[in-house]
């Protein structure tokens, strides 16, 4: 296990920066999710940590030791890829033994270690079988096992490992991964573009977009106080509402809005108020923090109403639980509780 630090790391493919300069640290034994849309640089970042890609600039430290110039096998990293990689012609046993034999271990020690790992991964009955014809989830466990079989694994990296797994096995495998994390106290980094997967799996989520890390935080923090408009949009369904507003104090349609932001935004920045649909309320009477709006539709979704409102020209969403009064179509007031909304200046949250 190791603490992993990236210092001023950036990477370019040709002329374009796939990864903008970043400094990040991953604590020992943490379960991290690396979340972002396709093509945002998640896999590049992962491959830089494992050593498959040498970064254009910056340093990578494992427990303070500079490993930037080291090859993947010298870094003691386990990596599981999107599509299962197994050595088809070998048995499951030989697959697991492969990294150890490459290091010149004696057969006796290899056998002991392979059986240990097979027991943890529940692969024992498959050991003598040929890896070729096995199901995708077993193959993923084998490729995980090939990483874990080496002692002192610094971290286990997953690159969207459940893409090709059947939905009903996905849950099982994900739970097994979590157990493994607790049992072995592994540092895990898990790349995904699926917010549910990220939020259920990880203690901490690293959100990326366009080669940039925009927020690192607990699933709760990402939901309650997104640091960047992208996080607000990407997490939640539907994503956070952002309503353009004017100067200080912020006003929407002439109504002054008090928010949880206490600092002053930079002068000249583009301002918006951000509020989750879960917190936006619909009222029939005016009052503080209530903006005139028109309810254009209200869908019954079983346990809640999905309400669409028009504020000026802007469409916003509100989720209202069934316990409250049904919402009628027509003029109304959108209420933004001050502690649940925040001011965003040029896409970033104002503290």
């Amino acid at each position, binding site marked *: 296990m190791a603490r992993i630090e990236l210092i001023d790391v950036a990477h370019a493919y040709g002329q374009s920066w796939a990864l903008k300069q970043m400094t990040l640290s991953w604590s020992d034994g943490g379960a991290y999710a690396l979340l972002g849309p396709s093509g945002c640089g998640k896999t590049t970042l992962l491959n830089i940590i494992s050593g498959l890609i040498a970064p254009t600039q910056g340093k990578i430290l494992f427990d303070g030791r500079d490993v930037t110039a080291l090859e*993947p096998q010298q870094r003691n*990293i*386990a990596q599981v890829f999107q599509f299962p*990689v197994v050595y088809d012609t*070998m048995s499951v046993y030989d697959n697991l033994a492969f990294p150890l034999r490459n*290091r010149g271990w004696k057969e006796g020690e290899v056998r002991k270690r392979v059986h240990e790992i097979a027991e943890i991964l529940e692969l024992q009955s498959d050991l*003598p079988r040929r890896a070729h014809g096995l199901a995708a989830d077993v193959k993923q466990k084998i490729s995980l096992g*090939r990483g874990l079989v080496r002692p002192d694994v610094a971290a286990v990296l997953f690159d969207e490992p459940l893409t090709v797994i059947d939905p009903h096995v996905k849950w099982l495998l994900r739970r097994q991964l979590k157990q493994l994390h607790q049992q072995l106290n592994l540092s895990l980094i898990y790349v995904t573009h699926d917010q549910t997967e990220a939020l259920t799996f990880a203690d901490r989520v690293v959100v990326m977009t366009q080669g940039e890390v925009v927020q690192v935080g607990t699933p709760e923090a990402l939901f309650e106080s997104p640091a960047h408009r992208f996080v607000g949009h990407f997490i939640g369904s539907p994503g956070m509402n952002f309503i353009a507003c004017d100067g200080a104090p912020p006003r929407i349609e002439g109504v002054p809005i008090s928010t949880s932001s206490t600092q002053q935004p930079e002068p000249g920045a583009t301002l918006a108020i951000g509020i989750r649909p879960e917190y936006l309320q619909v009222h029939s009477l005016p009052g503080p923090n209530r903006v005139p709006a028109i309810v254009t539709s209200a869908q019954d979704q079983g346990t809640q109403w999905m309400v669409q409102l028009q504020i000026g020209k802007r469409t916003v969403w509100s989720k209202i639980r069934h316990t409250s009064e049904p919402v009628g179509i027509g003029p109304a007031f959108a209420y933004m509780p001050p502690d649940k909304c925040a001011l965003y200046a040029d896409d970033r949250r104002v503290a």
Partner: protein
Amino acid sequence: MSVAKPVNQRAWWLVLPVLVSVAFSALIPLMTVVNYSVQDILSPSQSVFVGWEWYKEVLRDPELHSALVRQLIFSAAVLAIQIPLGIALALSMPREGWRSSLVLVLLAMPLLVPWNVVGTIWQIFARADIGLLGYVLTQMGFDYNYAQDPWDAWITVLVMDVWHWTPLVALLAFAGLRAIPEAYYQAARIDGASRWAVFRHVQLPKLRSVLMIAVLLRLMDSFMIYTEPFVLTGGGPGTATTFLSQYLTQKAVGQFDLGPAAAFSLVYFLIILLLCFVLYNFMKNVGADEQQGRSA
């Protein structure tokens, strides 16, 4: 209760064109050969039924036996040289960029040359008096003359075939290598695999089906080789480079022994079929033999 489906035989009309074209292109010519093989053709209008006579004669023919042995040695040599060489070429080729395109074009060139031209090229190239190769070898002190020395003739035919056909194996293997996902190489790097281990456990298994096609193609083609040695050596010196198809042509065209030639063709056909069948089944099981592995 099931609804009775209307049954009729109209669908046969749809396959009729295929059946007719197969009949005219394969079945009827083949049956003509079968017919010839059991008759003694005295003149175009006069023939006598002789039964197994020609088959017995052909199978006892010592010249045919030696042609067959030569043929087997030649095909074995072709496979033993061209398959590993083709794989080695494919492995050392640049994988992308203009260099890759250039190498692909250069490799494909021998495949584009008509076969009799290949023979002519080497016939001149290897001549000791005016050919570059022959001249250089002679000047270097080698006693090289493919028109007189059987050994030299053999080597020359073999080298010509390697030059002509190894690119096919290399191109097939290259395509097979390109199809291997990058993740396999990445996983192997993480597992600390050596260059040899990557070849043995990643590349070779993934090339298996492509190589099977390469081996079968090269076996069949080399077994039927005719044009190039015909132009280069004319089967000589003596009968040193007379392979099966050339011997067959000598019989059928040269001596007009249509009956024995037809019997010979059928035997020839069955030999190729049998070899391909055996080789195919052998190769199908090569990877599967490792199923058990070294498990404890």
